[in-house]
């Protein structure tokens, strides 16, 4: 390691070590952050106490309104340390309602972007169907808002973004990850349970990060930015994307491109994640030369 890189490493201010509230504040322009429906409003999950699970007075979801690069923005951060960042009735509604209010502001002529910080395993199983419904409604709200202003998904780690919430990430205008973050629909444990250890060895940490990790997702074009775990750099990446505005075509709408990529893959074998990077893009190149 060069002296400069070494200095960078020891001087960095870890973003991953921040809790949800600190993360949200860190992304907004200094002095502009204002929390909405905060812990003192005490809107807790009505479903946890009856199952002997201690609720939290913000339900593990922090809504912070303010500015990013001088423009109106709302940051909604999930707290991975509370129930694995899972989506319950209240946490889900906080995120969805915040996006709907941002959408209404856009329609009134006040451009407002949204940044969603996803550290989550998906549905909170104690609230099962209301969690699943919350994710469906959140996805609908992302689709409505992203027509006007970018919806940026940041997955920093260490929980990662899994289950139904990976679909929410898939709808985002941009996805930002660190090397420590993971993004995928099914976690390794679930796959191992369903289809056996030959399909996925959930104790193989290297394999997990090689598939779900930020570096791989960025290398295969499934994440738009790969950032160091350093708060100023994370904030800078978010600012850049806010200023970039709505992409010409969202990733989840590029059906022909991705369908072709899946068609070109040999489904009879397991792919080495490193080799997959070129396998994935092989068909694209062929198209271009035609």
């Amino acid at each position: 390691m060069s002296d400069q890189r070494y200095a960078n490493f020891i001087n960095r201010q870890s973003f991953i070590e921040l809790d949800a509230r600190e993360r949200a504040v860190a992304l907004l322009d200094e002095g502009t952050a204002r929390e909405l429906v905060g812990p003192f409003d005490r809107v807790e999950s009505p479903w946890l106490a009856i199952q002997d699970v201690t609720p939290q007075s913000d339900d593990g979801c922090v809504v912070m309104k303010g500015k990013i690069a001088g423009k109106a923005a709302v940051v909604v951060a999930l707290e991975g340390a509370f129930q694995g960042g899972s989506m319950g009735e209240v946490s889900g509604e906080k995120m969805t309602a915040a996006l709907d209010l941002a959408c209404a502001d856009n329609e009134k002529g006040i451009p407002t972007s949204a940044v969603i910080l996803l550290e989550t395993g998906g549905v909170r199983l104690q609230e099962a169907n209301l969690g699943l419904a919350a994710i469906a409604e959140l996805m609908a709200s992302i689709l409505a808002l992203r027509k006007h202003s970018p919806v940026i998904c940041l997955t920093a780690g260490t929980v990662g973004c899994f289950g139904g919430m990976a679909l929410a990430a898939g709808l985002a205008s941009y996805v930002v990850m660190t090397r420590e973050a993971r993004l995928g629909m099914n976690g390794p444990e679930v796959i191992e349970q369903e289809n056996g250890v030959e399909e996925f060895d959930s104790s193989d940490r290297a394999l997990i990060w090689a598939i779900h990790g930020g570096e791989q997702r960025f290398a295969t074009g499934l994440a738009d930015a790969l950032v160091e775990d350093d708060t100023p750099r994370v904030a800078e990446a978010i600012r850049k994307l806010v200023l970039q505005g709505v992409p010409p075509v969202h990733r989840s709408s590029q059906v022909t491109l991705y369908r072709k990529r899946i068609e070109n893959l040999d489904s009879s074998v397991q792919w080495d994640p490193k080799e997959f990077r070129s396998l994935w893009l092989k068909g694209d190149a062929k198209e271009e030369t035609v």
Partner: protein
Amino acid sequence: MSDFTGVRGTVWFRALAGQASPMPGDPKSVLTADAPLGNDQARFLCVVPDPHARFPCARHGEVGLEEGYALATRVREIIELDKNTTKRPIVAIVDVKSQAYGRREETAAIFLAASAAADAYGSARLAGHPVITLVVGQAFSGAFLTHGYQANRILAFDDDGVIIHAMHKEAAARVTLRSVQELEKLAREIAPMSYDIRDYAKLGLLHKLLHVDNPENPTQQEIHAVKGELVSAIEDARNSPVDLRNRLESKGALEMRKASLRVRSLLAEQWLAEQ
């Protein structure tokens, strides 16, 4: 779940669309057809099991990579065709046990395939297409988010074989560190955890519960009645906003989603407040 057969999708697809085949170039697991429904020509879509599917973890009715993109293609096709004309109805017939759990699926980003289908359904709804979901069997977790949950209106049969849920019983018990018996007991007391479609209906997310004596073998009369219900759901969707607010403004939601409603009103109030 062991009792998943996946026959209901094909049965209802044939009953409503008059045939049951994939479109050229699509996997056998995705049925698409255009057929008359009321005064409209509707597009019907369904995911069914294909034991010879290209991807090994998607051979029992799971929604996988190919299914996600095929659905997205067939829905987007309709958005494009109706760009400057009457928006035809899109009907999703749902009987899906789960998403595909596989290493290949994760490597090739099944989450994006699922997002692409949800994007297509949601974009169709936002463009003014009445998107109607008919749950005839199972509607689990990521599979339902992919195929069905973005609809303006959701209808389901009030039948024991109809289950809408976030996770299968056995897996949910494991994850929440309970026995299946304990989970079943809780599920009977707590509506959002219930595996009974009649409890799900209490949450206010459904447009209507329909009754069919045997959903695996419906009579002509029952099929006719279901078509009538689809037509009135289409009518209702056409006369309502294109977002999903109806799910939160329903009678059931007023009772069961009080916390959601409180979040919305508090947040709206504080959003406007002076800094």
